[in-house]
């Protein structure tokens, strides 16, 4: 039957798809059914067998995509993307003492890495000194141990801070560690306005996922807004918060949950800064994001594209930001640590390659690729080099960098991008109804949702419904057995001894005064950063500085965890 409208393309294709389903497809499936009843992403989003123009009915490329470097930034934040400049290859490194990590930094810089990324050990991340009883056994193990400015001076020895950009993955004590970095810059004679880098400084996702907190949410947000205000004024090129979905995903969330909770955290920070009286146009361009790149290739690409579109709308419509720079979601990506297997560890190189490719097709600004042995230990120099080379092969050999957002217009990718966008808005609406992300966290909402998703996924793996190659399929006895990079038993006592010696040698009067001033400021509305900076210069330790604030702010305790 001839269509009434004379056979305009949309009607013809629409009839065409139905025809195809009822004839060609039905007959094929009749002879040989599909391998599974239902196909889903790793996050359990259903995926159709075919996407066609019907999936994008009413879809307006001008509104949904725009052009690269223009709102809504779906196609990327830069007009030329990787044709203009490749992403920053930023490998996370840190272990043992400041001296050990400083050596690794020099090694990475010599091998073509373009930015530094510092991993701190657990005591530092929790704002505790190396000689704190709770730090026993953990000093220098998962990252570098930093107690005072003296350690930070060693960490960046021989690295001019005006010539590198440095990312520091630290949250609850972020303001303290940033102050130490600023103090090192002062000593090197580098003006603060020249410094480039990022502190993670994202406490909300700590309550949600990574659980490295010190104070309750409200004073934590006050420290963050103080730090944002200080940097906006004095360290204008510094990325003040790296709003992180990475850890939410590692804790077991789905891709959609990662997207939604991260953007909700972002809303929480912007709201807090606005309420603290900061001008959104002044601080918003220095907010950046950090997402995970997991196994499901297209879902991850769609997630990053959707993230940019949703954030643009949030900044324009909710916060009425006027400058496009405030609407842009710039992001770092790390491949999914939780996807690596100890079984047949070389396979991890392949996983990481696919995940890295997804991050790049999704338009990331910087990337960390995990090393093949990171499921058991920090990487060796060899495995860290393969991880970096993986990025370089994608950048230099694969050709995927030659054009901007190459998957745009794919029926599937655009439909999936829209679906993730919708999921994000739905969750953001639920969080709004709870009164925002802080009340949602206090009610345990994101925590519960993630625990559910992670339990479901584990059940699916145990039942063989989700496949992990080398673990529940194609398994054979080829495991990564030993920690490849050893942290010597001398690291902890050595670090403790250095800290004790430093405590004896420092200017006691200046130290006491500085901590007293910090505690006093914590009781008022005075910006905390100058007092923290002075305490750092007086060689007060991370534990002493965080302790001074804890006497005023109190400690956070997690509510009862429901299983």
């Amino acid at each position, binding site marked *: 039957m001839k269509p009434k409208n004379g056979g305009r393309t949309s009607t013809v294709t629409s009839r065409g798809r139905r025809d195809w389903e009822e004839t060609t497809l039905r007959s094929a499936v009749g002879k040989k059914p599909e391998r599974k009843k239902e196909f889903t992403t790793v996050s359990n989003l259903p995926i159709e067998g075919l996407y066609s123009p019907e999936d994008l009915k009413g879809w307006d490329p001008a509104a949904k995509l725009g052009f690269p470097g223009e709102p809504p930034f779906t196609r990327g934040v830069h007009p030329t993307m990787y044709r203009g400049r490749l992403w920053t290859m930023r490998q996370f490194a840190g272990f043992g003492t400041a001296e050990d990590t400083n050596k690794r930094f020099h090694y990475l810089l010599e091998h073509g890495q373009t930015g530094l990324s510092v991993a701190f050990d*657990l*005591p530092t*991340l*929790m704002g*505790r000194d190396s000689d704190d*009883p*709770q*730090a*026993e*056994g*953990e000093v220098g*193990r*998962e990252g570098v141990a930093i107690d005072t400015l003296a350690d930070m001076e060693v960490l960046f020895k021989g690295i001019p801070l005006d010539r590198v950009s440095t990312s520091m993955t630290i949250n609850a004590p972020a303001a303290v560690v940033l102050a130490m970095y600023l103090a090192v810059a002062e000593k090197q004679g580098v003006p603060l306005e020249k410094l480039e880098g990022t502190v993670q400084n994202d406490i909300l996702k*700590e309550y949600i996922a*990574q*659980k*490295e907190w010190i104070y309750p949410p409200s004073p934590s947000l006050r420290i963050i807004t103080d730090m944002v205000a200080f940097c906006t004024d004095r360290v204008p090129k510094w990325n003040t918060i790296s709003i992180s979905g990475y850890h939410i995903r*590692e*804790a*077991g969330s789905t891709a959609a949950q990662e997207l939604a909770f991260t953007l909700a955290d972002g809303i929480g920070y912007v709201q807090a800064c606005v309420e603290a009286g900061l001008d959104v146009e002044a601080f918003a361009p220095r907010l950046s994001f950090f997402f995970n790149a997991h196994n499901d290739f297209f879902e991850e690409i769609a997630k990053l594209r959707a993230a940019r579109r949703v954030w643009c709308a949030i900044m324009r419509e909710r916060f009425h930001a006027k400058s496009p720079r405030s609407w842009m979601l710039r992001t770092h990506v790390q491949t999914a640590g*939780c996807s690596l*297997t*100890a*079984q047949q560890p070389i396979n991890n190189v392949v996983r990481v390659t696919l995940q890295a490719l997804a991050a790049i097709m999704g338009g990331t600004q910087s990337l960390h690729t995990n090393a093949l042995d990171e*499921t*058991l*230990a920090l990487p060796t120099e060899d495995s860290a080099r393969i991880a970096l080379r993986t990025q370089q092969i994608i950048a230099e050999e694969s050709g995927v960098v030659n054009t901007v957002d190459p998957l745009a217009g794919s029926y599937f990718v655009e439909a999936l991008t829209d679906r993730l966008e919708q999921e994000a808005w739905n969750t953001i609406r639920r969080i709004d109804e709870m009164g925002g992300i802080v009340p949602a966290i206090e009610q345990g909402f994101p925590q519960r949702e993630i*625990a559910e998703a*992670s*339990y479901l996924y*584990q*059940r699916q*793996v*145990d039942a063989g419904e989700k496949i*992990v190659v080398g*673990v*529940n399929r194609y398994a054979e006895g080829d*495991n990564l*057995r*030993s*920690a490849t990079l050893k*942290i010597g038993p001398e690291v902890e006592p050595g670090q403790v001894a250095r800290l004790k010696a430093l405590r004896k040698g420092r200017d006691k009067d200046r130290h006491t005064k500085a901590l007293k001033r910090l505690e006093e400021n914590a009781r008022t509305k005075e910006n905390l950063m100058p007092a923290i900076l002075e305490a750092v210069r007086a060689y007060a330790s991370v534990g002493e500085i965080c302790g001074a604030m804890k006497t005023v702010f109190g400690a956070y305790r*997690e509510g*009862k*965890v429901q*299983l």
Partner: protein
Amino acid sequence: MSTTREQNVRLLVGKVGLDGHDRGAKIIARALRDAGFEVIYTGLHQTPEMVVATALQEDVDGIGLSLLSGAHNTIFPKILRLLTEKSSSDVVVFGGGIIPEEDIPTLKRAGVRQIFTPGASTQEVVDWVKANVPPRRR
């Protein structure tokens, strides 16, 4: 209805130290509970002393610890020593997480009964607990 053997076994699942990675601990706690055991989950940031105190107070038969921080060689021996000091060395201690295979013999010699490494299924853990953690009281 008769009680199953699992219902007579009480377990403590714990996170010791500063490490906040509780995905595995919560999955295992829930899988053990779903398998019929009575499970107490300690929550985060426990000291060995706190874990042992809770274990004794709750009169548990087994303690399962999740460790991803690299501190296993410090924390397991300390828990075992504290249990012995409290005359409770019959509490079965097992664990899992990021623990290199080469550290396992030393931990087992110290008295850790089983270590589950990355890739272990929840069913393996449940089956092992069923076979190896008897009820202590009665």
